[in-house]
């Protein structure tokens, strides 16, 4: 059970949060101009890394804000947390 440092509320138990999949997958601005393959890439393809992964999390039972997390999926170490729209920390 993680202890997550919400950028708006501080450290809270994982059960207050909802995981939202891979981060930094921007919704295409002009979806109609994409080929089926390009759209499928956005829609379905996720990296699912064993190791350092960038993820979206939502403080669903708290401030309801979305934010980003860098997590090592092999040992669940949370390496960084930053707000939506902020640049990911350099790896």
């Amino acid at each position, binding site marked *: *059970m*993680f202890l997550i440092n919400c950028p708006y509320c501080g450290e809270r*138990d994982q059960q207050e949060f909802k995981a939202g999949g891979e981060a930094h997958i921007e*919704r*295409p601005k002009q979806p109609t101009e994409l080929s089926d393959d390009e759209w*499928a890439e956005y*829609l379905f393809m996720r990296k699912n890394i064993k190791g350092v992964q960038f993820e979206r999390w939502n403080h*669903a039972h708290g401030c309801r804000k*979305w934010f980003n997390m860098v997590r090592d999926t092999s040992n669940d170490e949370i390496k960084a947390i930053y707000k*939506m729209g902020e640049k990911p920390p350099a790896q």
Partner: protein
Amino acid sequence: MTKNLRVKSSEYIDETNRISFKFNGKTYHGFKGDTLASALLANDVHLVGRSFKYHRPRGIMTSGSEEPNAIVQVNPGTNRTEPNVRATEVEIYEGLEASSQNCWPSVEFDIGGINNFLSPFFPAGFYYKTFMWPASFWEKYEFFIRHSAGLGKSPTSSDPDIYDHRNIHCDVLVVGAGISGVLAAKNAAKNNFKTLLVEEKNELGGSTIYENNEFNKIDNKASSEWLKKEIEELKGIKNLEIKTRTSVAAYHQYNYLLARENLTDHLEAKDKTNKIRQRLLKIRAKKVILATGALERPLIFNNNDRPGVMLSSAVKKYSEFYGVACGSKNVFFTNNDSAYESALSLYNKGINVEAVIDIREQSESKIVKKVKEAGIKIYWSHTIVDTTGYKRLNSVSIMKLSNDGTSVTGSKISILCDCLGVAGGWTPAVHLYTQSGSKLKFDEEKKVFLPNKNTSEQISVGSCGGDFKIDEIIKNLNQKLKDTLNIKETDLDNIKVEIDQENSKRNIWLLPSDKPLGKTKPFVDYQNDATAKDIKLALREGFRSIEHVKRYTTTGMGTDQGKLGNMHALGIIADTAGVKMGELGTTTFRPPYTPLTFGTIVGRNVGKFFDIFRRTPMNDWHVENKAEFENVGQWKRAWYYPINGENIHQAVQRESKAARESAGILDASTLGKIDIQGSDASEFLNRVYTNAWSKLAIGKCRYGLMLNEDGMVYDDGVTTRLGENHYIMTTTTGGAANVLGKLEDYLQTEWPELDVYLTSVTDHYATASLCGPNSKKILKKIIPDLDLSDENFPHMSFKEANIGSIQCRIMRISFTGEHSYEINVQASYGKDLWKKCMEAGQEFNITPYGTETMHLLRAEKGFIIVGQDTDGTMTPIDLQMDWIVSKKKYDFIGKRSLYRSDTMREDRKQLVGLLTDDPNIVLEEGAQIVSELNQSPVEMLGHVTSSYFSPNLKKSIALAVVRGGKDMMGKKLFVPMENKNINVTVANPVFYDEKNERLNA
């Protein structure tokens, strides 16, 4: 006739407090302080159970939570009964009853014991190999397997006890209160760390507390005396909370641990009532100090499982702590010095020790000398090759070990004995450590896995960290405490430890016998009856991974999770496969460390507290009027209102007719309501719904369909424009929370530039939906001054009005196809609104209807219910709702996906109506639809999603999804059921009032 083996009073046993208890129906006596195991041993009862597979007689092996054999059913036949309880952990109390498990008719005479003689036919993987063929026989096999499998019996009535959960936050959690844990907790608390010390037993002090060995001295005192003084000092320390009878079950990431605190299991029945039985502690600790100790290993030799074969350390504990002799002719079998401590302990209490059998060639330590001086015979370089005694050990046969330890030589010596203490070395209890995600490393010298890489702020101290001697323990503990707690000095700085102990050990994982392995039974996992030969067989059959061998042989898969035998299993695999143990790794230790009761896990969340109920403001009225309820998400919704003993069908038929013929009223308060404001609100709706919103006039309503980005229908509902920048959206009852979440997600992450604010107002408004041809007249009676003409208040429009002084929002929208109004008031007025409508509608026979009638009425109109007629694979095109998908809008969520090759396929499942050829047959929802009856395998075209008998059409109607259904209008299909095939015809899903004439009736 039972012998009394109580040898000498112990300070932990209160001999003035005599307790009677029953085991297998027979009454025995013990004393306050006894465990069930110690009390049985004092009565010379060793045989307590039968093994899982071979039904071999088994006895008490250990004195703690690692016990594999002595697992009993506590209080059988009562509603407090509990299976698979370790007799070594049950504290006896007056009236306790316990019985053996896995035996019939009794533990003394067990029919299943025949399995022991059939054991050549039960090799590893027996079930996998045998019950494969023929496949159709599985059901017959299963019946017998289920009956012969399993250990204890679950209670059949509900649990009378109360359970609880508690959150604890602390600076330092110390797990285990042996010498290391006690000293760690004391020093942490004294340095102002808020400290919690938990101990699974009822006494602090671990094994040191009964250590009267003259060779271990701390500050010139016997280590037990010294530790008692330390424990006494704990009492006055602030910041320190101590919980005994508390076992840490799980150690999760970020120092989150779950522990079970046992509060009443040791009390008499009369003292248990109205008390919390067990409490689950959810502990979040800044730092964790694991002081979980070490478990003694047995040795693996032929027939090493007989009642009377015990761990050497257990024999010592029973004698020192409980004052019980486990036998009158004791023998020890060892590969290290520990057994000599036990032997000496027994000798000093006047208990007869026949011999010590040592696989080592020699040991020169003082304790060995002392044993020699006591006149106890020591057999060096010898091993036990066999044991005898079916229900109780009566002899061991020993032979000389070859130099390489793989065979035996010379002649066999038989030694009569009734108790054998086995000492195979110590295994650090690293279970919790690895659960935390931390990694182990194999120590070649000590032959144990030790903590290596920590993933959180934690240390392992004492023997679980690899320190087995008191001087090492205190020295390393001191340093670790200073490093972890960042303190300069501790109580331990000036402690003087004198010790004379040798660590010499000869490690042989599987001891040889004079018989070939195939003819022996060297048990590795006692509870699951896995032997060394099973493990070797698994390797011969090609299993290599330790995890696979575990599953194939079931080694380590019992309720004890192989606490005793896992290391031997690894050792045997390593030796056989010729690899190093360190390379092999260990199997995964999973929570819980010791089994938890279901009660502890669920705590207070039982019965009506299992989940939250949400009730509408009109709920009391529904209850008073005898509504039946259904669960919709967490909501309790009125399902139907039976009168005069109607069943559901009769009630729904009556309600449906009334709603169409005169007037009906539905509690629609549960619909999700989201208040949307901001200068970009219209643009936002354009992006989240499939249809266009910019041109919706203020005061108008529009139905919207929301898709996922994959093009599949996600939710639907009517949204009303209240002002230039103000909308109120309704969602499905079940979808409300998810829709809000999804909208917030897009606003925060994809479109942060939009000026839009979302507020959930589901609970703020109560909604009564008035429908039917007389609904207008009823509303007129309630709000006489509101112009209800079609010109002023047409279908799909909105008015604000007052009922008396109560403000309300009225939408003229319809989910039934009838002329309808949805009246919204502040939630606290909901019940009054409802009563007012009922009163005003009385002359029109206004009929309250529930969700079932609502479903029927909308099905007559072919309106979908998201989640019933859709299942996350339906696009609006599949639903034949092309009309709601804007062609003009550049983009909306899911639009691009509607043009993927897969979503454009013509043969997708599409929503259609189905009419049964016999109008009286009502299809079953979920029934499959086919076009051919004589094909095998037959192609499944789709399934029925909604089905009712329509009282207004006087026939059965159904909605269904059918592959390529759009082009099948009028086609004959079949719904094959168990006993008959039903003929159906594909029809327009709008069965009633296709021209929508009734909306303005």
